[in-house]
Every structure is written in structure tokens, then in C-alpha cells.
């Protein structure tokens, strides 16, 4: 009995420590973004004075606004394209049998074995020879390539879990195979589709390395790059950097809150057996 309580207490403590480790920097960023610069380095963790000047300052910078727009464009396009490509691709891998299917599935997974850094140089060379450096198009395509393999495999797992009999019932009821996919399977894996779209957006939104390698002009910089330029050696403000960090974090948090129920949903319950 006491033994159990001790163990529970220990586990709770560990969880708490982990949570603090994860949350502290984030909380610190949020708090710092609304404190006067003078307090950030000197004051304690509890803020005493508040200000919105950092946010006003960064939103007054045109390069930051351009970067915000660029990030939104690339993120939304990548997210939509990921869904549009990953859904049919994973459906085909899950439902149809054809020559080379398993090998293709393996290849898609194999791309994940190399870290992004390892393919960075070839990608940069490739984009250069295509004359696409300093374009959002280049970023869109590379971000797509980054997220698609995981998206395909994740969706494939969900589609595998939808019983084939549901589609067969739909086909007997008068739909085509494609109709069954749209009317039965897709609605059932909607949470996963939304998760994949969100994941692609977040991935592209925060991606720094490829952007750094491919983009140098201010008009096509994305937020992570713009954030880096905030570290200006001549007029440096911790507060503005923190405010920039918050702006980068917000969409992710909002997306998560928005789709929380979808992401945790389990819809398949009840259709099959008792």
C-alpha cells in the first residue's frame, strides 16, 4: 500500500520534472515577450511590468511582415499538397496490389533513414541547377518532400485499420471503389488526414535549415530566417526576439487547439462486430 503510494509519488515527480523541463523555455519566451527589455535579463521569472511594445515593434518591420506572409503561403500550400498527394498514395499502398508496391512503400520509408542534413547539399545543387534558388517554389517543393513520406505512412496505417468489408458493403450498395474511398474511408480517417495536414504545416512553418540554404533575399525569407535577422548586433532587443518566437509558436498552438478533438478522435468504433 505505502509502497504503491511511494511509487505513484515518484512517478508524479518525474512527470512534473519532465513537464517543467519542456515547458519552462516556452513559458519563459511568452513571459519575456511581454516584459520591458530591462526586466528580461534582470527580473525574476514572475513579471511585474507588462508591455506590448515588442510586438508593435516587430509588426512594424516590413521584412518581418513579408516573412510572415511567405511562411503562411508556403505552409498552407505544403499542407494542402501533402494531403492531396498522401491520401491517394497511401490508399493505393493500402488497398491495391500491383507489381512493386511493397518496394515503393519501402523506398518511401527509406527516405526517412537519411537525416535532412545529409541530403542538404544535393538538394541545394539541384535547386540551383533548376534556377529556383530564392523562390518560394523551391521551399514548397523541398518542404513537401520532407513531410510526405511520414504523411503517407501514417495515413496508410489508418487506412489499413479501416476494415475492407466497409468498402465492400459500399460497393455492393452501388458505389465504385473510388466512391467507397470518398464516402466511407475518408470520413473515417478524417482525424488522421487533419493531423497529417497540420503536421505538414507545422513542419514547413518551423523549417530553418533548408530555408537558410536556399533563401538569401529578404523578399522570400520565411519566419525562422526573419527571426534570425532580429539578432541584429547593432540594435538588439531580447524582447523582440521573444515576440518573434511567440509569433512562430502561435499557429501551432492554435491549430492544435482547433483540431484537438479531431486529433484524439476514434471514429471507427461500432461499425464492426460487437
Amino acid at each position, binding site marked *: 500500500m505505502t509502497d504503491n503510494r511511494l511509487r505513484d509519488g515518484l512517478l508524479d515527480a518525474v512527470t512534473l520534472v519532465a513537464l517543467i523541463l519542456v515547458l519552462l523555455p516556452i513559458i519563459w519566451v511568452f513571459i519575456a515577450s511581454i516584459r520591458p527589455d530591462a526586466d528580461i535579463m534582470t527580473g525574476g521569472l514572475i513579471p511585474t511590468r507588462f508591455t506590448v511594445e515588442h510586438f508593435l515593434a516587430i509588426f512594424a518591420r516590413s521584412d518581418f511582415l513579408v516573412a510572415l506572409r511567405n511562411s503562411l503561403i508556403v505552409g498552407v500550400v505544403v499542407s494542402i499538397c501533402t494531403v492531396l498527394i498522401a491520401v491517394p498514395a497511401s490508399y493505393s499502398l493500402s488497398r491495391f496490389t500491383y507489381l512493386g508496391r511493397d518496394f515503393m512503400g519501402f523506398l518511401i520509408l527509406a527516405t526517412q533513414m537519411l537525416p535532412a542534413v545529409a541530403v542538404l547539399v544535393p538538394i541545394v545543387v539541384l535547386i540551383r541547377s533548376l534556377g529556383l534558388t530564392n523562390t518560394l517554389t523551391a521551399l514548397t517543393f523541398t518542404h513537401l518532400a520532407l513531410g510526405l513520406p511520414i504523411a503517407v505512412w501514417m495515413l496508410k496505417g489508418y487506412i489499413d485499420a479501416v*476494415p475492407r*468489408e*466497409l468498402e*465492400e*458493403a*459500399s*460497393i*455492393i*450498395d*452501388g*458505389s*465504385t471503389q473510388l*466512391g467507397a474511398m470518398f464516402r*466511407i474511408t475518408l*470520413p*473515417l480517417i478524417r482525424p488522421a488526414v487533419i493531423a497529417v495536414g497540420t503536421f505538414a504545416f507545422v513542419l514547413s512553418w518551423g523549417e530553418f535549415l533548408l530555408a537558410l540554404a536556399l533563401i538569401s533575399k529578404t523578399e522570400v525569407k520565411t519566419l525562422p530566417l526573419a527571426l534570425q535577422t532580429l539578432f541584429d548586433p547593432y540594435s538588439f532587443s531580447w524582447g523582440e526576439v521573444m515576440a518573434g518566437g511567440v509569433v512562430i509558436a502561435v499557429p501551432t498552438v492554435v491549430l492544435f487547439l482547433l483540431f484537438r478533438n479531431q486529433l484524439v478522435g476514434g*471514429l*471507427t*468504433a*461500432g*461499425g*464492426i*462486430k*460487437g
Partner: protein
Amino acid sequence: MSDIKVSNLRKSYGAVEVLRDINLDIGSGEFVIFVGPSGCGKSTLLRCISGLESITSGRLEIGGKVVNQVPPSKRGIAMVFQSYALYPHMNVRDNMGYSLRLRRASRAETEARVNEAAAKLQLQPYLDRFPRELSGGQRQRVAIGRAIVRDPAVFLFDEPLSNLDAALRVATRLEIAALKETLPQTTMIYVTHDQVEAMTLADRIVVLNAGRVEQVGTPEELYEAPGSLFVAGFIGSPSMNIISGAFAEGLGAPTIGIRPEDVILGEGPYQGRVTHKEYLGADSFVYLDEPVAGRLTARVPGKADYPDGTTMAFGFQPAKIHRFDATGKRLTTA
């Protein structure tokens, strides 16, 4: 017109031949049951008829039309799956109306037909519920309702009751029997493991064995005159006593079969030792050991009051003996 004619149907998965040369004639409005041991190809044959599975070779006709290349939805069939396969994201009403919506039926017509089917199956209180909010029996009825709504010419069932408990299975079995009465024009094909379902529901039973049709006949024919040793052993519970060797030779055939209820205990030319008894209420099974024949089962009414180990006389009426030749075929003349 919804008769089904299967000619020389074969089905292989790669090198594995699952159905071999199936020939069947199923009349319009007939209730036919497929039985056979697990893995013999019942589901595969049903799925070939439905069109979910393509046919490797042979011909399938429904209503006088060759439908080998016709997609499932154009064959005029409805299917009830073992797992029910209700659409989890639709309520009962939408599940049942799904096929009509696909056919672009009017709202009013869909509503009317769903209500009619729901009334037939006592499903009105559940129309707005989702499948996950229903019991197993209710789900089963929705699955049947979804099939009825389409007004199919052919009704296919793949072990529809196997997920229900014993009591519900009996109740649903009676419902299916009643359903059959209300749909006299509809041909029904039903796959089951359950002997009682097969014997009580079927107009005719098709016994499948390792991808072949072993015998086709009314429940009575199969029970009274099984065409082969396989059918003899498969139909009837407890299964028929199969005896070969000297004992059988003595009765005029390489192998003989005798149903447990045809074994007469207490009188007769043979002696057997009681090894075990099972009391089932209305009757009892008595297991006997005969030196030459081996182990035999006898079915006696009520309770069997013989202590284990007693040796008893037994025998059987000559007319009740089934005789089979060395290849397992029934010998018609005794």
C-alpha cells in the same frame, strides 16, 4: 426472375485453387445454405456470386444473364456481412438509406423505404442512433435492414449470426425465417457453420468440401441419404457413427454409418461397454466401446441410467444402416 446458375466455376489465388469446378442451379425464390468445414471455400463462393471476387474461369448467371463481368452493384444483390460492416460514421437511418442515396432516389422515397424496412425489423426506435450505440443483435438487424431497403433479387448472408449469443441467435434465426416468408420472390444464399440453422432454414443445402460441391439436397435428403461419407459425417449432431473393417463387412459394405438415434440400447446382437454419458435434458448421449467396431455414440431419450463400465446389448434396424463403398460413395442397393 432471380435464379442463379453456376457452371464450371473455378477460383484460384495465384497457384492455390480454392474453388474447383462448381456447378449449381439455384431456383428463383429458393433459400439455399452453404455448409462445410472451415476453409472449404464457402465465403469465396459467396463473394464470387456477389462480384466482390472475380471468377478465374467458368460462368455465373443471375436471372438468365451472364454476370461474370457485371459489377456487384448491378447484379441486383444485397449482402449481409458476418461483421455487419455498418458504416460507423452514419446513423441507422443513413446506413439503411445509403444505397438509395447512391441511386439518387428522392428524399421522400428513401424515407418511405427506410421506414418500411425499419418497421419490418422493429428498428424504428433506433433510427437516429449510431452503430456504436447499438447491441450486437440490433446491429445485425440494421445490416439486414440495409439489405432489404434495396429490394434485391438475391440476398447473400455470410454467417450473419455467428457473432450473436445463443439466445439471440435463435431469435434472429426465427426472424430470418419470417423474413423469407415475406420475400417469397427473393433468392437467398446463406453461409453457416451451424447445423441447426442449415437444417431449419434451408430449402436446399449445398455441402462444400475442399472447394468442391460434395452434395446438394434438401435437409431431409442429406440427413436420410447422405451421398458420401463426408456428408454423412458432417450433417447431424452428434455425428454419425462411421464403422469400417470386419464389423462393416459383416453388414455388407466396406464402410457403414449409423446415426446415434438409430442405435437401440438394451437389445440386439452386439455387446458394448458404456464408457461415458452426457445428459442434455431431453435426451442423453451414451458412448459405447465395442471390441470390433470401436467407439460408438448412442442417443437415448431422457436420462440414461447405466453406470459407466456396464456392458450392454445393442443393435440397429437394418433399414437404418447407411452403406458406403471403399471410395466413400453411398451404396444405393443394400
